[in-house]
């Protein structure tokens, strides 16, 4: 380890420092409210954002454990944006608690570090460390609404199933190590492509299968999704948004790297299985979402469906410079992060203190009470549904177009029909907001932080929808860097 290694991972260092700093500030600066904690943590996130973009393509830190290239930077940017928005929203929601949870700030920062390590990880052990750092912070965060049984249930369920999936992942990693004698992904790739290939082929294949299962838990692919609806519903809304956007992006970053590493071995032979998973995930998520009346639960199932759409891209991707499917995945994850954190921010705004108004009826007539909030919500939902001109449309466009180009016509047609189905339940929220009359108590969630967050998300989504070029270019650079890291 040298000084240059540390400077390469400056964004992560800032976040760790930020986490420690917020803990210390909380302990030694006795003040009511949490404004000072929010500001401390935001300062460090901004410092991390400012130190992004170090390293060039092919740069490795810590002896090949981490890659700091455009691919990593793309994801680091995504995570930091997610963290920034989640901190702003969470500070409002947690301040409403009777006994405010100050741990929220450091935990979000630590979890973000975990995600960043995952996106950078070049070897399987580093990857596992990153994944656990991210997850353990999230288990606590999910259960952080102490008075709510649902929240505790969510935390516990997430912990159990998360531990279960980690076991799969770890077992897979050990098999891969047994077959290849290395944790380093590019080296695994080389050995698999060397003359003679890998001698313990069955072990090698089994290893990838288990790793796929472990990651499938994290991104909530059907049939590994059982925890998702309960955890998403039970966890506090800002945490759900953070989880849905961040965990998904980090896990797909890893999946992309893994699929490219093993593209000629496991994943080419498992292509029908992968397509099957994608179809199952999209269709199940969408069909079950149709029946939900609780908005958070509906969004949980929609998150499952979105994992399915992204997985379509994973079916079509292969190791090459500028692979269109991989580019689509990166673009999709970035825009999905924006819309998802935005949507959950809105849910926390409208649902009140205990989240008792997450029922769809809580949104009745919102357009009358607050046209601006409902307009932003409509934009976010349309983006989730993939209606142009929003960022969500281009995400689907890039992924489905690439899949079509690779000859997955049936898969794309099923995905498109799925997005038509999805239109129904997103539309239902819009219908409730715009076409039903308001009833019950008036909407009371005025919070400048949350309003600023969702407004920024909506504007960004429209902007990317009209001019997808810059983000898509960043994604293309990321994919190119990923290809060069092998």
């Amino acid at each position, binding site marked *: 380890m040298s000084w240059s290694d540390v400077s390469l991972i400056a964004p992560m260092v800032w976040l760790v420092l930020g986490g420690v700093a917020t803990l210390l500030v909380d302990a030694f600066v006795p003040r009511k409210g949490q404004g000072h904690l929010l500001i401390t943590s935001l300062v460090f996130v901004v410092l991390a954002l400012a130190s992004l973009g170090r390293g060039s393509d092919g740069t490795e830190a810590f002896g090949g454990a981490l890659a700091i290239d455009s691919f990593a930077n793309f994801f680091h940017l995504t995570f930091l944006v997610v963290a920034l928005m989640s901190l702003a929203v969470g500070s409002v929601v947690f301040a409403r608690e009777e006994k405010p949870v100050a741990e929220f700030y450091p935990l979000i920062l630590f979890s973000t570090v975990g995600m960043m390590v995952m996106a950078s990880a070049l070897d399987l052990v580093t990857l596992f460390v990153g994944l656990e750092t991210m997850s353990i912070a999230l288990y606590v965060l999910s259960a952080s609404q102490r008075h709510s049984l649902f929240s505790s249930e969510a935390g516990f369920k997430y912990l159990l199933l998360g531990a279960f999936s980690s076991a799969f992942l770890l077992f897979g990693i050990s098999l891969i190590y047994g077959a290849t004698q290395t944790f380093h992904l590019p080296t695994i790739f080389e050995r698999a492509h060397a003359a003679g290939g890998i001698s313990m082929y069955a072990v090698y294949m089994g290893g990838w299968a288990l790793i796929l299962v472990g990651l499938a838990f994290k991104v909530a692919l059907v049939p590994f999704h059982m925890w998702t609806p309960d955890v998403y519903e039970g966890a506090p809304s800002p945490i759900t948004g953070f989880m849905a956007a961040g965990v998904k992006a980090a896990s797909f970053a890893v999946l992309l790297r893994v699929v490219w590493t093993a593209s000629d071995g496991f994943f080419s032979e498992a292509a029908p299985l992968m397509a099957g998973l994608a179809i199952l995930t999209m269709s199940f998520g969408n069909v079950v979402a149709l029946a939900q009346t609780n908005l958070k639960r509906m969004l949980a199932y929609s998150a499952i469906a979105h994992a399915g759409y992204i997985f379509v891209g994973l079916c079509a991707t292969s190791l090459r410079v500028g692979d269109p499917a991989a580019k689509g995945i990166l673009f999709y994850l970035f825009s999905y992060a924006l819309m998802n954190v935005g949507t959950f921010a809105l849910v926390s705004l409208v649902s009140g203190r205990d989240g008792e108004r997450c029922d769809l009826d809580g949104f009745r007539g919102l357009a*009358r009470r607050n046209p601006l909030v409902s307009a932003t919500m409509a934009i976010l939902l349309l983006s989730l549904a993939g209606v142009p001109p929003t960022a969500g449309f281009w995400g689907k466009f890039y992924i*489905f177009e690439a899949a079509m180009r690779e000859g997955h016509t049936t898969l794309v047609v099923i995905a498109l*029909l799925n997005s*038509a189905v999805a239109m129904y339940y997103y*539309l239902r929220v819009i*219908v409730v907001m715009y*076409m*039903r009359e308001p009833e019950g108590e008036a909407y009371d969630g005025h919070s400048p932080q949350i309003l600023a967050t969702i407004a920024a998300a909506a504007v960004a989504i429209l902007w990317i929808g009209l001019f997808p070029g810059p983000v898509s270019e960043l994604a293309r650079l990321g994919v190119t860097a990923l290809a060069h890291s092998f």
Partner: protein
Amino acid sequence: MSMIESHLLSWVIFLPLIGVGLLLLLPRRNDRMARNIAFVILVLDFLLSLKLVIGFEPTAALQFVERKTWVATYGIDYHVAIDGISLWLVMLTTFLGPLIVLSTWSAVTERVREFMIFFLVLQTAMMGTFCAQDLVLFYIFWESVLLPMALMIGIWGGARRIYASVKFVLYTMVGSVLMLGAIFYLYHQTGGFSLAGVRAVNLSPLQQAWLFGAFTVAFAVKVPLFPVHTWLPDAHVEAPTAGSVVLAGVMLKMGTYGLIRFSIPLFPLAAAKYAPWLAVLAVIGIVYGALVAMVQRDVKKLVAYSSVSHLGFVVLGLFAMTSESVVGAMYVMLAHGLATGALFLLVGVIYERRHTRAIKDFGGLAHVMPLFTVAFMIATLASVGLPGMSGFIGEFLVLLGSFKSSSLPAARIFAAVGATGVILGAVYMLWMVQRVFFGRCDNPDNQGLRDLNLREICVLVPLMILMFVMGVFPKPWISTMQPSVDALLERHVERVEAHVAPDLRTVWLSREEEQR
């Protein structure tokens, strides 16, 4: 000014969006101002669009072309242009726009600002659909129409408005996602999204069949063609008057426009092969729409079903693929936009006064509302195609063209069955007029009804004038449409023959070999 001159088409398309910006800046609860802004913007847009007509050269070439790279990596361009086919649909949109806003003065009293915003977005999206020369751009405009319309139905509509609105969105959405899939496939076959590029590529008959299917389903839902027309009566009945007028006046034409702009020229072989089937559906639509219209008790529903019947003529004309029939189909689109638009406006007028649309609640209105009756009679006669009125020219040309069509087997039967639609049209419209306007005015509720006021007259008179002008002097319209239509048909015939010809040659060669 030169800025406007050089980007005239973009200004026409996007001027309503500038209006949206102004409306967003407007403080809430300033309904009067919102209406005025929307009205002024749309009048300006209409005046601006007149420059398109003046500057339009009657050739088949694309005009007022604007092309700028948009998403470079995929070769997606912002590419808009008009030819004789698009021109009049754009004009129809800009012409109806201000009249519709004027008609909402007393009909829309709640959330006026939102209504105007949705309506202006709708105008831009519809015009964009008619002008886009890039498949992705077209798709984006096409989809953008969906939500404002759904909200207009869902917020300001009648009792079952939410059902109607959701049904409208879902029907259209299922159709259009398949079209998006087809667009992807085309991209991967041709390497570009430009309409001209895609048209130049030769696709195999099988590919054409699938792609034609995907595009045509999307358009057929919009037209709406039998049997996917069931969303239309619901949407029309529940929509506010303004919504019905846009829906019937312009939005249905997006479907038929799609057929003539995409389905037929991009997939000529499939279009030639499946033309008879679509013509069968069209003819069923003509007769079925008319028969169902006849038994309606609600005036608005009757007019809605009459749309199914009239749009059947358009589809029949398009797939008969003769010069007369296609020009006729275009003409029916415009005439239907005027006549049915006017009928919906008139139904709206009476609904505002009586809050009912049931035929049995009326009778003898001619005694109390003479001006209204005259206007309704004119619109009715234009709709049923009385010679000398706008409806006649189009339907006559369609029937004439289909009669001698070579693309349909037993073309005469199609023409003959289609012609019964004209007769049935006269039956259901005139019978309804008889029951509503003539006879004794028994119902006491009807006796004190006010006749048309000045604002309503201002809305209706331009429509009435055009119905006459288009009926007696069709030349300006036909002469601008004809070159584009002829060029399209010529290319179609060439490409169908180019495919058939090699087949004949191989047959001939193999036969020669056999003889040897």
